[in-house]
């Protein structure tokens, strides 16, 4: 378990695309703080966090099929799935905290982390970063606000429930599906 965790953390911290996403998120968050948006800066930092989650989960399915090498090294899929989630949460937590601090709302860290896990779950299920980005951003930025404004009677489940459901579904698909 420790070995699998270490491997996943190393993969996450060495990916250039993740660093780039994080750097862009921080830059945009800082810039937008100057304009003082009505919905708060966190709403914009959240977008970067969502893309981060999708890329963190989807990178193994891109060209080269690294997922097969990972599965060769750790054939027990539930173990690998859990290691991936734990490694992502632990590695991303400090960076997400910095994002929240830059946005001026350190209390938003927990919510952002859960958003990250939801995005990672979607990325794992869809296995296609471009498609998963489209789905996650459409759902978060267009779908949910639409339901809130046009159908105020529909009760949406709270974020922890969402995140738990997304993680369970992603682990189940990951364990059952051919890689």
């Amino acid at each position, binding site marked *: 378990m420790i070995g699998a965790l270490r491997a996943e953390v190393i993969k996450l911290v060495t990916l250039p695309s993740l660093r780039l996403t994080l750097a862009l998120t921080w830059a*945009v968050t800082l810039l*937008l703080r100057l*304009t003082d*948006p009505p*919905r708060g800066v966190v*709403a*914009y930092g959240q*977008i970067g966090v969502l*893309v981060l989650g*999708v*890329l963190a989960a989807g990178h193994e399915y*891109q*060209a*080269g*099929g690294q997922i097969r090498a990972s599965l060769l090294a750790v054939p027990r899929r539930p173990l690998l799935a859990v290691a991936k989630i734990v490694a992502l949460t632990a590695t991303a937590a400090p960076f997400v905290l910095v994002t929240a601090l830059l946005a001026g709302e350190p209390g938003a860290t927990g919510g952002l982390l859960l958003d990250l896990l939801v995005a990672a779950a979607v990325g794992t299920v869809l296995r*296609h*970063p*471009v*498609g998963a*980005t*489209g789905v996650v*951003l*459409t759902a978060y*930025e*267009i779908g949910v*606000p*639409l339901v809130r*404004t*046009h*159908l*105020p009677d529909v009760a949406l489940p709270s974020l922890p429930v969402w995140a738990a459901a997304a993680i369970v579904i992603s682990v189940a698909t990951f364990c059952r599906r051919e890689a």
Partner: protein
Amino acid sequence: MVNLIHAELRKLLGLPTAWVGLVLGLIAAPALALLSAGATRQAIERGIAGDPSDTAFQPLGIGLLGALILGVVAVSSEYTSSGEDAPGARQMTTTLAAMPRRYRLVGAKAVAVSLLVAVQGAITAVATLALTEMVLGPLVPPAEPGRAAAAVLYWVLLGLLAYALTLIFRSGVITLTVLIVNSSVVSVSYLLTKVTPLAAYLPDIVGAHMFLNDVGDVDIAPLTAGLVMTAWVAALLGLGAWLFDRREA
């Protein structure tokens, strides 16, 4: 050139993601018109709905996500590796071997995207307007054909904008993030209009003036809006084509 457009259309229609875009674009706007009918009727009766002639056209602003996806995958699919075990092999290599003149290739792709989005936009616009007419009836004035045509043109231009941006960035993730976020409630472009009124002329905001009366705080005539948006798209497409011509594929 006809062969080229035919080839690009067949490639585009062979992509599963393109079909997701096509179906999403076709369904989203009519579905929204149906689902929000109750809330809209209440808003109109209470007099808080703004310009009633906009009501029928508002859902069309959402459905154009499908057009965005079509514009993005037309390019991003070419750069995705074609085989799991051969990360270096990309569709683009084959495409350029068959059609080495790059400006013509960019043009053919643009025509293919425009054709698909125009058909999609026309069907969606007619369906959405007919549905709104059916469910809201006399509450909204009958839709003008000119505005419907402007809405379809807006779809085509946004599809081309997505296409041009993906040519420039060569990454579907960046383009999708920028364009989806900007068509949502946390739009960065909209935020900029609060900072400077000039931001109302950014491509994704100015285009909506072509078929909606109430957009933001600035009033722009539909014709001006169309011209400004076309100029943006032409400039970005030119830049994208130039970069594509210069860069190694």
